[in-house]
């Protein structure tokens, strides 16, 4: 089996990452009853015996001594990382995996990308190399950061291009948190657009997540739990609506939202960690869902978001799960995929679901979903037999859909509103190495991306005939 490394950058990245490790440990604890360090665990954790001499690494099959996460934690201010090191997860990370500074990036992409990027280049590359060396067969880097701040968006994207330089054949999947319109960071549009260009050029796949959608989902869950229907009780002990039963007794703010993103990562890697009848490896995700190199923004949608406490799940519920995955309430960005054009779609199912259930639901939903003309049957499916904690099954849908276009257009709007007035521009231009041309290039990259999606959208209304076939001399 292969290994993956998680690189968490900035405050948001580290908080989400922290939730991910918490949930991953809980999930493995639930499944791994015998305390053996198996292949599934080794995909995200090292097993270290500190009594052994050289580096203490233990092979698969032995008892669990001490699990260390395959992670690199980067932040330019110490608060969050220190919090992690004092919290219940301190055993999972060791000091060689951390990279911190004191003063932060001041919500300035240029500071993160250029100043810290150059200053810390050596140590970042060294830490990454060491983490990669601990892996038998490294398949994927998961990068987690926000787009609106300075460290996450600036230094995070710098790390992304370093990953491409140093480990060009390892897949790079980025989970990027996009700011909502009411974001309190004024310069977040600048930071986001500057980072977008890096993501378009250097990432293999991007899973965009919008804060506003997460807020909506969390609100819906609390509405359900505060008795929409009498007698409905939400299951407490599941990984989705964690907090209860997690390692820390009190739930911090943003925890509920970060949990959802952490679940996204758990589910995407489930087939790589656990067995199933139709395995879906991480490199297959990029292969099947990215038809053109720049169009690699995949809209995630996760079901179920909560489980009612009744144990019996009739088939109707299973079908409901598939329908939910395509409704706009479950998307992690505010978008309406059903009314845009699907380029490709992947369904990763966990739990006790059979191929026949999968086929039945695809056939049921297929007529209502507009697919691009050259990919009418464009479904990639994966079945993993281990369900998430507290649920009997779950579904993650990743869609490469033109519905991301409005999100990007809105971002562009907010950017130009500031850029026209040259507001706050001097903060960026003062940074060593930053020029105005970087802004204009980032903007034109975003324009080109929006245009590509637009071209594809335009084909939606037209009924495209089959391409004329090659004619052979007979």
């Amino acid at each position, binding site marked *: *089996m*292969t290994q993956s490394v998680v690189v968490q950058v900035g405050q948001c990245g580290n908080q989400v990452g922290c939730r991910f490790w918490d949930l991953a440990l809980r999930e493995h604890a639930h499944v791994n009853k015998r305390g053996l360090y198996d292949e599934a665990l080794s995909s995200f954790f090292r097993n270290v015996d500190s009594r052994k001499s050289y580096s203490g690494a233990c092979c698969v099959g032995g008892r669990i001594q001490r699990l260390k996460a395959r992670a690199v934690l980067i932040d330019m201010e110490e608060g969050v990382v220190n919090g992690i090191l004092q919290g219940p997860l301190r055993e999972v990370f060791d000091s060689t995996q951390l990279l911190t500074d004191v003063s932060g990036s001041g919500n300035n992409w240029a500071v993160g990308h250029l100043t810290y990027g150059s200053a810390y280049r050596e140590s970042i590359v060294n830490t990454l190399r060491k983490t990669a060396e601990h892996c*038998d*067969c490294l*398949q994927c880097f998961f990068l987690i950061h926000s787009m609106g701040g300075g460290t996450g968006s600036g230094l995070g994207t710098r790390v992304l291009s370093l990953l491409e330089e140093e480990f060009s054949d390892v897949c790079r999947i980025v989970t990027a948190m996009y700011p909502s319109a009411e974001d309190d960071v004024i310069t977040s549009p600048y930071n986001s657009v500057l980072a977008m260009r890096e993501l378009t050029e250097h990432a293999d796949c991007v899973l965009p997540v919008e804060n506003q959608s997460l807020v909506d989902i969390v609100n819906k869950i609390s509405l359900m739990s505060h008795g929409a229907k009498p007698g409905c009780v939400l299951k407490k002990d599941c990984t989705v609506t964690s907090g209860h039963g997690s390692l820390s007794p009190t739930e911090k703010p943003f925890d509920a939202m970060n949990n959802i993103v952490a679940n996204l990562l758990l589910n995407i890697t489930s087939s790589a960690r656990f*067995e199933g*009848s*139709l*395995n879906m*490896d991480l*490199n*297959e995700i*990029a*292969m*099947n*869902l*990215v*038809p*053109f*190199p720049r169009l690699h923004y995949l809209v995630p949608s996760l079901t179920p978001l909560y489980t009612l406490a009744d144990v019996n799940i009739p088939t109707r519920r299973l079908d409901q799960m598939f329908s939910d995955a395509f409704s706009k309430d479950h998307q992690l960005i505010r978008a309406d995929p059903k009314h845009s054009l699907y*380029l*490709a779609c992947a369904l990763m199912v966990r739990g006790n679901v*059979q*191929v*026949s259930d999968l*086929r039945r639901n*695809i*056939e049921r939903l297929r007529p209502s979903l507009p697919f691009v*003309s*050259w*990919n*009418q*049957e*464009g*479904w*990639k*499916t994966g079945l993993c037999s281990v369900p998430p904690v507290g649920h009997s099954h779950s579904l993650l849908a990743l869609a490469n859909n033109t519905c991301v276009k409005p999100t990007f257009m809105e971002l562009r709007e907010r950017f130009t509103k500031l850029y026209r007035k040259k507001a706050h521009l001097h903060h960026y231009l003062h940074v060593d190495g930053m020029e105005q041309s970087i802004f204009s290039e980032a903007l034109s990259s975003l324009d080109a991306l929006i245009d590509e999606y637009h071209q594809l959208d335009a084909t939606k209304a037209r009924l495209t005939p*089959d*391409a004329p*076939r*090659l*004619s*052979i001399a*007979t």
Partner: protein
Amino acid sequence: MSVVTVQLGQCGNQVGRELFDVMCSDAEDAGRKTRSTAGWERFFRHTTQGDLEARAVLVDMEPKVINHSMSRAAKSGRWRYGETSHFSQKQGSGNNWANGYCVHGPGHRDAVEELVRREVEHCDMLAGFIPMMSVAGGTGSGVGTFVTQCLRDIYPSAFVLNHLTWPYGTGEVIVQNYNSVLTLAHLYQLSDAILVHENDIVHRICSQLLKIKQISFSDINRVIAHQLGGVLQPALTPDSCGAYSRNPLGELVGALACHPEYKLLSVSTIPQMASSSIAFSTFSWPALLKHLRQMLISNTKMEEGIDWQVRPPPASAGRTRTLTAGSFNTSLANLLILRGKDVYSAETGGFGDSAIYTSWLPPDEAFSLWKSPVPFNKYEKSATLVSNSQALLRPLDDMVRKAWNMFASRAYIHQYVKFGISEEDFLDSFTSLEQVISSYTQLQC
């Protein structure tokens, strides 16, 4: 004479294990000594400890499926795979033909060739190779094509019969049509003959004939194994002069693939039913053969829902034939294999009728008949028809059409270019397959 099977990728390894299972139990059931020895000898060898080992090499780019197949085989207690006859890596081919063909294949060439060489050395006489794979994924299709090429290079006088599993039309992998087109185009130059099973068809057999409610891949693989076993188990052929054939692959290829443009073979078996019903059914050769002949000419793979209206066209019908005109399936060549009771009294004249064949091959060249008095796989009487006909024309055309539409917009091409396959290579493959489609379309008069 012995056959070495090379199982490639998840599908190849899963189907292969079912196939060896079927052949082992069939050889056990075959009471008569000569038939039994021939059955063991062809696909198995006895180790010094008296265990039965399959003459097979297992190749996959990730270890889970091979481990599973090997342990299932060993658990059966009747046969197993050689301890060292397998090769796997840690990371799969990512559903990418180019990754399989250009990177993994050459990268592991020496190791795989060594395994094959060792297996061949155990054979007294090598009858040929059967590489087994699917065309939709990355390893089976890409590495499989590369390995077939190596076999061709190293053993130029051995027969190579590829067994391919074609995926469901509605897809499990988005780029399956690309992978299929690249595989078929290359194999056409390398293989002696290509034997095809389609998941869609086998799925229907499972649901409508075998009445299985929740169909799993094991069910599908078992049907494929049954059909393949019916072809590959020993039989008395015209060339073998009263003994069980010692050159099964050569004779099969000779009977069916007489022209380099026509290499696609499909299989039909009759009867097929749930094993619980077998004991309560009676079979007669006239009924079985009548149904099988109609299945052939109306292009159905099941003995239910046959269209009895389809008839061979009258001799005066026009020269040109389009893909859609009529539902009559013209054959180039047919091989009928009868197994079981009273096999010598079976009347097979219907298959020698020149009306069902293309005009430029005389029926006594086009039709071959093999027999074995030993019943196969619990059926008192069974007939297997291996056919070189237009049966695969429509699925092939659909596959090429979908791949071409995708290619027209250049979707996913960068993923292949990344590993060394260019647009030129794609165009070459499309051209070869259009040629194949054209040849089969014109197969009449």
